[in-house]
């Protein structure tokens, strides 16, 4: 992808979200020095005061796109970067701000939150648009979901990238980690866990404490929403609650898949 003659140039960018993924990078205390020495970090909104975007080999992009200004910036980042990684559930799937996206018109929801005196063009941060994940606008080369991301998931991809190796994706659902943690399935006990349709990476923290997965790592690539809905119905979850559960962190992917299933 790039020669190893120069240190790879990395940029960390943030859009709409809680900035937790950038914070997670800053919190990698043991690795932080190496992180800043093995690559040349040219842009890191949260960690640097001097910032410039010229060309980056690797762009790590957090957050969903919520304004026209952000969209322009994203397109610029895409143009100036070789490999773009979506960081966290918001960037990968739209995140919690995507919730109810298809329920009512954007204008109506906007009015409900901000009242009728404020227009969406008035925002100083740019004209508001319906929240979307990065992949709905630009090509995303790799996704690292997480809420926030886990360093064990990011680092193997990041270190491959700075060595110029294309990372292989191998998605798995929460269930895989859940079994490896030594849990049996909560669904068998009538607890409405949606782990089978959610990306792994968290180490099945919630199911390991007998709490059902709520899906904060976003949809699993091979998620079978039809079968998941049937199972939830079988254990007594009504359809409306089931759909709300699946859409909570499901973003645009869950929305699309569920639309197909309901049809």
């Amino acid at each position, binding site marked *: 992808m790039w020669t190893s003659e120069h240190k790879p140039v990395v940029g960390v960018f943030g859009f709409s979200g809680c900035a937790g993924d950038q914070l997670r990078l800053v919190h990698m205390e043991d*690795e932080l020095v*190496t*992180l800043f020495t*093995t690559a040349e970090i040219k842009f890191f909104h949260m960690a640097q005061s001097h910032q410039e975007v010229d060309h980056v080999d690797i762009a790590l992009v957090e957050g969903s796109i919520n304004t026209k200004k952000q969209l322009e910036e994203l397109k610029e980042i895409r143009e100036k970067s070789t490999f773009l990684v979506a960081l966290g559930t918001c960037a990968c799937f739209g995140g919690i701000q995507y919730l109810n996206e298809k329920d009512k018109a954007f204008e109506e929801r906007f009015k409900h939150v901000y009242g009728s005196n404020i227009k969406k063009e008035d925002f100083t941060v740019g004209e508001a648009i319906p929240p979307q994940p990065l992949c709905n606008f630009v090509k995303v080369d790799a996704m690292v979901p997480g809420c926030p991301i886990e360093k064990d998931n990011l*680092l*193997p991809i990041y*270190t*491959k990238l*700075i*060595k110029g*190796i294309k990372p292989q*994706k*191998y*998605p*798995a*659902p929460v*269930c*895989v980690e859940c*079994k*490896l943690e*030594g*849990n*049996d*399935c909560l*669904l*068998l*006990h009538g607890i409405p866990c949606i*782990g*089978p*349709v959610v990306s792994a990476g968290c180490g099945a923290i919630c199911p390991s404490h*007998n709490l059902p997965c709520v899906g904060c790592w976003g949809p*699993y*690539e*091979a*998620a*079978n929403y*039809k*079968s*998941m809905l*049937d*199972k939830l119905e079988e254990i007594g979850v009504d359809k409306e609650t089931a759909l709300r559960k699946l859409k909570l962190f499901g973003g645009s992917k869950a929305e699309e898949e569920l639309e197909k299933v309901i049809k």
Partner: protein
Amino acid sequence: MKTYKLMKEDFPQFLSLLQEKGNLYGPVKSKNHYSFEKIDDLSKLTFNYTRTLMGLKKFVTPPRYKVKHFDKSGSEDIIPENETNIVIGAHPCDIHAMKILDKLFLGQIKDPYYKKRRENLVIVGHSCMPDENCLCTSTGTDMVSDGFDLFLTELQDFYLVWVGSSKGLFIIMSSEDLFSEKIDMCDIAEYTTWQENRQNSFKTTIPFHLMPDIIHLIYEKDELWNQFGEKCLSCGTCSLVCPTCNCFNVEDKILINADEVVRERMLDSCTLPYYSVVAGDHDFRPDRTKRLKLYYTHKLKEYIGKWGQPACVGCGRCVTYCPVGINVKTVSNAFYEAIQCVREVKKI
């Protein structure tokens, strides 16, 4: 095979003896199920259980482990240390599963990581009673005559202790006063009555021996497979809990200093997407049905063809743990049901 009698009142002493010999693992109740865990407190041990979530495979092919370390000077294998791990409470199906794994990992090509872990392992089996999900009479794995070091059959007042290896015999010999060779006719009668009672407790039988031909003949009948493909969550549970499933993925992790690499192996499942992706990014099995077909063809057809037995030991784990009811029982039954012909088929 030597057989001894161990009185029940001496059993705690036997357990302490095992603890002296190595790290003792055994079945304990954890949350909603049973699991082989390290035993520090003997009172936590329970033998009145049907199946653990994971079988013995976690001792020989752990869920995730490091196999090699690379740096600029070269590479080094990461072979586990010499230590004795004693697992007590394994059922006949678990031991049969271990025999299947041994065939695969210690055949012509010996896997050094498996070999070391296997050498470190001492298996003390324990008798069991079946529940409605147990299928081991159908797979011919309800009884076991080798593959263990010691095997305990629990009867009214005593255990019959079957010796399966020299390691097992050494354990007996190191505390001979606990064991007696005097097994009288009444003891034998008690054992055979128990055995008969156990045989009569099995509720499920599936004629697996016909499966290779049936699967071969229905292989292209997509509607039969699709009914399961449409339901499958691709969650990997069946493979992870199956005591004979042993596929692993290998990942080279470059450390953050970018100069060292650690190679890791982790348990994998053929029901996951991208399992069958090859170089050049071609995916042989992009959909769930195709992946399930691989799973069941491998277990119930190909394996019988190669080794004369299915890669299923009838432990009932898939039957118990698949959240959507796809398992060797429902799949085999669906195939048998599908071939119930409307016209009468005469016996020739």
